[in-house]
């Protein structure tokens, strides 16, 4: 009997560690049922930043419905992209336990 899966959006965000808590608050507020965070390092198009002092980058992942994904990407674009070191990308995934998201 094949496992029943459901298609959802996975959003991956890599951001300077100092805004991680704010990002997570926003993500949950916009309708995500959870998130997963890992410590990361990296280099991008921006130069130095304060995060070096507060820890490295944070990589935040959240599995959400497409409409929630849209809202989160909008929020990132309007509130974080300009002043903070942050990238985000999204793609489709098949989840088990689809009702929990």
């Amino acid at each position, binding site marked *: 009997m094949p496992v029943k899966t459901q298609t959802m959006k996975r959003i991956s965000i890599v951001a*300077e560690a*100092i*805004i991680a808590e*704010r990002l997570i608050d926003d993500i949950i507020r916009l309708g995500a049922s959870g998130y997963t965070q890992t*410590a990361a390092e990296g280099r991008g198009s921006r*130069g*130095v*930043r*304060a*995060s*070096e*002092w*507060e*820890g*490295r980058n944070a990589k935040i992942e959240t599995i959400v419905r497409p409409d929630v994904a849209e809202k989160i990407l909008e929020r990132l674009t309007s509130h974080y992209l*300009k*002043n*903070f070191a942050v990238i985000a990308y999204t793609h489709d995934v098949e989840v088990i336990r689809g009702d929990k998201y």
Partner: protein
Amino acid sequence: MRQGRLSMSALELIQINLFSPVILCFFLGIIATLVKSDLRFPEPLYQALSIYLLLAIGMKGGFAIRASTESGILLALVSGIILSALIPLWAYPILRFMGRFNKADAAAVAAHYGSVSVVTFLAATTFLSAIGVHYEGFFPALVAVMEIPGIIVALLLIGRSREEPTPWFESFYTVLSGKSVFLLIGGLAVGYVSGEQGMTKVEPFLIAPFHGVLCLFLLEMGMLASRRFGDLKRVGKFIITFGVLMPIANAIIGILVGSLIGLSQGGAFILGTLASSASYIAAPATIRLAVPEASPALYLTSSLAITFPFNLTIGIPLYFTIARWLIPA
């Protein structure tokens, strides 16, 4: 020892400072980066050392306050707060009009010089103990209170001009509950309340090895500072000059204030060093969130890659020479 110190030349003072293990380890860290060594401190080690140092400073200070019969702590605290609050008020216009910085950048840099650097404080006390000069035991309390006002005043300076400003009291709370101030004040309280019996028990962990742990920490600080040397070209000559002259001016002001409120020679020297130092922990974290449009390259490079090494190597013996000149032992 006491007499020896009075006759030491400035050169001898510089040498005593530079040849202490703590400062040598700082240089070692700089060299590690320059020769591209693969030496890295894992992040948790850096954090563990910070937690240890801050808690230990606090506890030692709390116990010193309890044990001491020195008066004048209140006057010193109030002076320290006022001093920290005033520094951004004169740093800001200099940055804005001589350095042609925009409002955000000027306020951000000013905030860092208004706040203080814990490690610079420790290097100053290490120096005093190497030359055998006494200082008041309540200074850890002063470090804690002087971290905050400069940041708040700088934020007030730009507050009005921004679209979505973080209210100043929110930032005040952020610094106050931030780990560095929290550990300092918490340590002070623990040290004060537990008193001598308590301190005897924790002494072998929190006091005796302190100096050695500081060596390790400065090895890492040397690596962190020198990783920013590459930005020096990018940020321009003005900020480099500022990063050297501003601390000297603030040190002199601090020493004068210390002398006015009756601190000892060593005490006035430390107050001067605190005033001269620029924060690189509490301030960057607060400013990054409260003034995100300001460029970290400017404020971190000036505080960490210019003022911090300058104070550690030349500043400390220089300020002591000034204090010795102004205040009799």
